[in-house]
C-alpha cells in the first residue's frame, strides 16, 4: 500500500494519470484545471512519464486530437473546465458515438457571463447528454480513485465509452488533502494495458466515422444506448475489484444518516462534508434529516437512487447549476422524473445554490432542510428557488 501524504488534489490527480501509464495527453490550459495539466507536462518533461504531450491550440483541438489518438490505440487523457468544456461540446458526442474511450477530468467551474473562474456545475450540466460516463468526486482520495476507475471502465471491451471525472474547481482541485497514492504494481494489477479490438492500423484497415443514412441511424443510436446502459454493470464490478485491491469501497449513490430520514438533502460533488455537518446538527436538534450523494451521474443509477431515498417524505435537491426557465435545477428535474413511477415516492423540492463560487454553508443546508419540512405542509410557490441571493 502507498503512503498517505498531504498533496494538492490536482497534483495527486496528475500523479494518478501517470500511474495509469497514459500514452498521449492533449490539453489546453484553463483555470481551475491548470495545475493538473501543468504537472503532467512536468512529469513528461522530466522523463517520469513516457507519453506524448500535445500542446494544442484550443480545447476543440484537444479533444479532437484525443479522438485521433485513442482511435490509434493509445491510452489518452485530457482535462478542462467551463469554457473549455463548452468549446469541446460538439466533439464530445462524437467521442461516445464512435466508442472512443478518452478519459477526462473536469475541474468544474461556472460558465460565462459574467466571466467567473469559480466553482459550480454549469459546465458539466451543459454536457448531460453527450453520452460519456460521468462521476463526481467528494474529496481528493476519491478524485484519484475515480481516475483509475475511469480508465479501467472506459477501456473495458464491454464498455468502450469515454469517461469524465468531475472535481469541484478550487474547492476540491486546489485543496491540500491527505491522499494515498497506491503502489504502481497495484495500479498495474487493477488497470490492464489498453487493447482495443478495433484501431487505425494499416495492417488491418477499418473505416471509422461513416455517414449514417436514415435506414441505420436509429439502429446505431439504439446500439449505443444499450451498450451505455450495460456499462453500469462493469462500473459496479470495477468498484468491487477496486475494493479488493485498494480497500476502499465505492457505490453509485452514497447515503448518510438516512435510516429513518423524513427529509433528505441531495447533492453531487465536494459539498458533502458541509452537508454532513448540517445533518449532524439537525439530528441533534431532533430533526430527521439525512443526506444522499450521487457519485455516478451517467449512466444514471436509477435503482440505487430509488433505494437510497425509500421512505423519505421530502427530497431537497441542491443543484449547482441553473437551467433558466426550467422546472427545476438539472439534478432536481432528473430525480423528480426518476421518482415519478415509484409508488409512495418522496416529494422533490429544487434549490439552486453555490453558483460561481458562492459558499454553501452549514446554515444554508439547514435553511434548505427547514424549507423542505415547511413545504411538506405548504406547497412551494415556485418550481425552484435560489439560495443565498443577496437582497
Amino acid at each position: 500500500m502507498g503512503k498517505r501524504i498531504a498533496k494538492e488534489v490536482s497534483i495527486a490527480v496528475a500523479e494518478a494519470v501517470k500511474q495509469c501509464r497514459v500514452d498521449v495527453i492533449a490539453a489546453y490550459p484553463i483555470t481551475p484545471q491548470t495545475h493538473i495539466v501543468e504537472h503532467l507536462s512536468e512529469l513528461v518533461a522530466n522523463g517520469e512519464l513516457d507519453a506524448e504531450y500535445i500542446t494544442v491550440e484550443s480545447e476543440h483541438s484537444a479533444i479532437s486530437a484525443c479522438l485521433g489518438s485513442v482511435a490509434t490505440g493509445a491510452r489518452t487523457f485530457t482535462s478542462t473546465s467551463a469554457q473549455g468544456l463548452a468549446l469541446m461540446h460538439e466533439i464530445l458526442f462524437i467521442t461516445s458515438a464512435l466508442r472512443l474511450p478518452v478519459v477526462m477530468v473536469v475541474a468544474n467551474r461556472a460558465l460565462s457571463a459574467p466571466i467567473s473562474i469559480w466553482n459550480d456545475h454549469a459546465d458539466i450540466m451543459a454536457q448531460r447528454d453527450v453520452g460519456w460516463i460521468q462521476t463526481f468526486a467528494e474529496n481528493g482520495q476519491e478524485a484519484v480513485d475515480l481516475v483509475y476507475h475511469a480508465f479501467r471502465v472506459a477501456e473495458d471491451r464491454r464498455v468502450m465509452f469515454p469517461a469524465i471525472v468531475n472535481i469541484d474547481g478550487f474547492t476540491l482541485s486546489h485543496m491540500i488533502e491527505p491522499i494515498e497514492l497506491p503502489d504502481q504494481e497495484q495500479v498495474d494489477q487493477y488497470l490492464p494495458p489498453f487493447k482495443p479490438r478495433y484501431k487505425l492500423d494499416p495492417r488491418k484497415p477499418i473505416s471509422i466515422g461513416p455517414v449514417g443514412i436514415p435506414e441505420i441511424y436509429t439502429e446505431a443510436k439504439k446500439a449505443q444506448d444499450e451498450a451505455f446502459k450495460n456499462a453500469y454493470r462493469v462500473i459496479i464490478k470495477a468498484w468491487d475489484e477496486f475494493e479488493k485491491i485498494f480497500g476502499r469501497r465505492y457505490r453509485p449513490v452514497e447515503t448518510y444518516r438516512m435510516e429513518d430520514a423524513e427529509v433528505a438533502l441531495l447533492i453531487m460533488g465536494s459539498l458533502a462534508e458541509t452537508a454532513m455537518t448540517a445533518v449532524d446538527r439537525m439530528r441533534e436538534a431532533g430533526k430527521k434529516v439525512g443526506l444522499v450523494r450521487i457519485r455516478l451521474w451517467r449512466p444514471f443509477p436509477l435503482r440505487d437512487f430509488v433505494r437510497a431515498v425509500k421512505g423519505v417524505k421530502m427530497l431537497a435537491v441542491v443543484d449547482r447549476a441553473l437551467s433558466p426557465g426550467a422546472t427545476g435545477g438539472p439534478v432536481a428535474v432528473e430525480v423528480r422524473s426518476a421518482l415519478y413511477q415509484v409508488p409512495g415516492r418522496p416529494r422533490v423540492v429544487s434549490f439552486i445554490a453555490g453558483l460561481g463560487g458562492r459558499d454553501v454553508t452549514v446554515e444554508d443546508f439547514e435553511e434548505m432542510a427547514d424549507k423542505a419540512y415547511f413545504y411538506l405542509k405548504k406547497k412551494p410557490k415556485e418550481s425552484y428557488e435560489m439560495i443565498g441571493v443577496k437582497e
Partner: protein
Amino acid sequence: MLKELAKFKGFSAKNLPKEEPFAPGHRACQGCGEVLALRLALKALGMNVIAVSATGCMEIISSPFPYTSWRVPWIHIAFENAAAVASGVEAALKALKRKGRFPKNRRVDVVAFAGDGGTADIGLQALSGALERGHDFVYICLDNEAYMNTGVQRSGCTPYGAMTTTSPPGEKSIGQMTWKKNVPAIAAAHGIPYVATATPAFFLDLMNKVKKAALVNGPAYVHIYSPCPTGWGSKGEDSIRLARLAVETRIFPLYEVIEGKYYITRKVTKPKPVEEYLKLQRRFRHLTEEHIREIQQRVDAEYERLLRLAECL
C-alpha cells in the same frame, strides 16, 4: 534539397503503383475533380497510411455505411478538426512505437484531407496549430472553391466574381466580392519543410508532390485545385481541361515551397487569357468585360509576385 527527398526518383508512367487505396464505386458526381485528386494522392501515398477526413463532399461520397471506399485505415470526426485529429494519430503512433506496441520500423504516413472550407475557413486554426507544432503529417486541401457538400456556398477560397448560393450576383453585387485567400502562403508562413500546389490535370506532378510531402520529416501542406462541375456549372468532361487552363492562364500556378524557398514547377511563359477559363463555367457567366479585365490584372500581378518570390530566393 532536403535529404529525405534525395532518393526519391519520382513517379512516371512506367512505375505507377498498382494499388488503389481509394476504391471505385463511390458516390461522387460525374467528372468530379476532387475525388480524382483524392484518388491520385492516395495512390502516391500507398497502403501504409492512416487517413483523416474532414466533413465535406469526399467524406460523404466515400462512406455511406455499410460501404466504404477507403482501403486504408480512415477516420472522420468533424468539419473543422482534421488537422487536430491527425495530430492525435501521429502522436499516438510515436508513443506506441517508442513503447514497443507498434512495429518501430514500420513507416506509416498520416494524411489529413479537407476541402477549402474545412481548411481556409473553419479549420484554419486547427491547421495552424498542427503545422506550428511540427507533427510529421501531410495535410491536403482539396480546393473546389466553395462549400459544395452543403450546396455551393462561398468560402474564403471562392474566387472573385464567382456566383455561389451565398454570393449571388445582383444589382448590388458581382457575386463573390473578395479575392481568393492564399492558404499555401499561410501554410508556408509556418516555416514548415514542404508546401506545394497541384492539380489533377498534371497527375504525375500531383503524385510526386504528395509523395514528397510524405517523405519530408515534419508537417507538409499540399493545396490541390479540384474542379467541381456541379458547383461550377461546367461540363463533367471539361474538368481536366479546366484544371489545365487554370494553370495555363496563371490563375492557379504550380509551385513548391521547400524549406521556405519557392520553386515554380511549371513556368507559364505564354499565358492564355483568363477569359478562356472563365467562359467554360456558369459561375462566371454574369461577369462583364470590365470584371474580366480586373481579374486578368489581378492574376498578372499575383503571378509577378510569385515570380519575384521564386527568383529572389
